């Protein structure tokens, strides 16, 4: 260890890895992972969320799973819930759409309207 900067570099890298153990004040991406969701391809969607968030170094979002949301025909479904409880429900997702949601919604703060449940209905 030669300098504080070197320590700081290790700290930032390691913090990224353990960041998900802290869930205070974070936005949550909740992916429906019941039988219906998994069959419709929810797992690659979830992995795309995790991967894209890490690639873009987003620290204030956690990706979690939930069971069946109830509209199985619209799976894979993911909800984005901000720390203050505002919820956006995205439907019929695929990995590409997930990556776009990360960039547009989670980074730039603009929900991707065309993927939301209100548009689909």
């Amino acid at each position: 260890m030669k300098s504080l900067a070197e320590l700081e570099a290790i700290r930032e890298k390691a913090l990224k890895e353990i960041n998900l153990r802290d869930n205070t004040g974070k936005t949550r991406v909740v992916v429906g992972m019941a039988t219906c969701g998994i069959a419709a391809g929810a797992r690659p969607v979830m992995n795309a969320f995790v991967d894209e968030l890490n690639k873009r170094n987003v620290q204030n979002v956690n990706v979690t799973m939930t069971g069946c949301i109830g509209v199985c025909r619209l799976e894979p479904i993911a909800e984005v819930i901000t720390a203050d409880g505002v919820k956006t429900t995205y439907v019929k997702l695929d990995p590409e759409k997930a990556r776009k949601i990360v960039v547009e919604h989670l980074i730039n703060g603009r929900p991707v309207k065309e993927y939301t449940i209100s548009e689909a209905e």
Partner: protein
Amino acid sequence: MIYRSHVLVCGGTGCTSSKSMEIIKLMNELLRENNIENEVKVIHTGCFGLCEKGPIVVVYPEGATYSRVTLEDVKEIVEEHLVKGRIVKRLLLGDKDAEDVSKALEEVGFFKHQVRIALRNCGVINPENIEEYIARDGYRALGKVLTEMTPEQVIDVMKRSGLRGRGGAGFPTGLKWEFAAKAKGDQKYVCCNADEGDPGAFMDRSILEGDPHTVLEAMAIAGYAIGANQGYIYVRAEYPIAVNRLRVAIDQAREYGLLGKNIFGTDFSFDIDLRLGAGAFVCGEETALMTSIEGKRGEPRPRPPFPANKGLWQKPTILNNVETYANIPEIILKGPEWFASIGTEKSKGTKVFAVGGKIMNTGLVEIPMGTTIRQMIYDIGGGIPNGKKFKAVQTGGPSGGCIPAHLIDTPIDYDNLIALGSMMGSGGFIVMDEDTCMVDIAKFFLGFTVDESCGKCPPCRIGTKRMYEILDRITKGQGEDGDIEKLELLAKNISSSALCGLGQTAPNPILSTLRYFRDEYEAHIYEKRCPAGVCKELLRYVIDENKCKGCSLCARKCPVNAISGEVKKPYHIDAGKCIKCGACIESCKFGAISKMA
């Protein structure tokens, strides 16, 4: 590698003994079976504190805390929670139907009242991964000290923080460092006392198991402050997990250049070695500990000279306890004023207690100084099991004493406990209910000291033995008039003449029980009666003639044929033959047999 979920499994000694390592192994197998081994990472951590509910498994990012997880439960956690995202409610700690599982845990009384400084990383990081420690601001304090502060400034910060030694006597840490810094010597040493020996105390073990790097970092800071380049950790060989994690931590710290030569590019060099103790209690005493590190028989020597001037190999040395060290990096980073704002006027910061005995939530808790005994027992500890009454709490181990129920609202700090005839000690907190005999408790702790006396000085070697013999007679119904006075005289003489802390404080358990429970001693001596119904020789087993149906079951169960009678008529116990084993009480279906105090 980034994972979507982390599963933290407690790898402290308590949970390890209830199979947490097998849980980790099985979980990894099941993750592979379900093809999610690249999404979920299983990590072993140090102690979460709630040992009573172990093994503890926490799943992030949800923060779902599962308690008393068995090997049979692992499959359900993997298939339900980790594959499908459905939380396994029946295993949750706290409110099982809470909307937000991580908030539910914060509401659990056991965690709600705690302030975690020394235990800040225990149960949060993988203790065998230095990068996780660094992620939680690890080694930043060392970096700050080496690049921005002079040794004098470090000592000044320690003094202003008000930190006192967490190992027993509560000596101000900054002052200790200042003495060693001012002492002249070509070579100085920094030692860590990890020879935790009080019965029931395990906070040092948990810190070493859960966060070993914090101790290494603090020792390096101490080395810089006093001008030492070598540290020794004296840890008991009976702590194999702690020893192993310390070895891993030291190797990693050397690899990262955080121990060794020219740390942070400065001309400060520091290294640490382990010394394993064989487990003698006296080796927790500072001079005995250093003698043992030198490779000699662990015996104390008179002070002065104090270790700050002539310690290890006659060189200036500081010796601090594990928990003391664990506070230091946080004090450096957050400032002495922050630390001094927690606690009471003369006892700053927090203290870790190992809560045990007759209490619901056995485990490890860290509370701000000044928390009352009542809060400890009822809010954090969850109260006394089986609806029994709280009688006393024993603090300070064999050097401490018993604090009775009427003082339950006392705020816990160094000076209050001393004033009550007990002491902080290393933080044992043994709760006793109405079924505890205080003479018997005093005998238990004294028995421990008699066994552990090193034998070097007669007051301790012979005096404690004589006191033990008197107590033993009293509990056997052979107490005599004058015994209490003899005990008091012996206690006074031993305290004032023993060589080291072990002997000087050995009479404390007797003195404090005599102070608050003298009537129990008198009942044993003059009435040949044990009010709590513990001392076997003073008990009589009797059959209530009105309740006995004459079924003869007890007579058949009695191993010494002490019970006789005619079927369908009340039976009788021959007190002369009875060995007071209790087999008859357990066998009686009518509750007709009882112990008479």
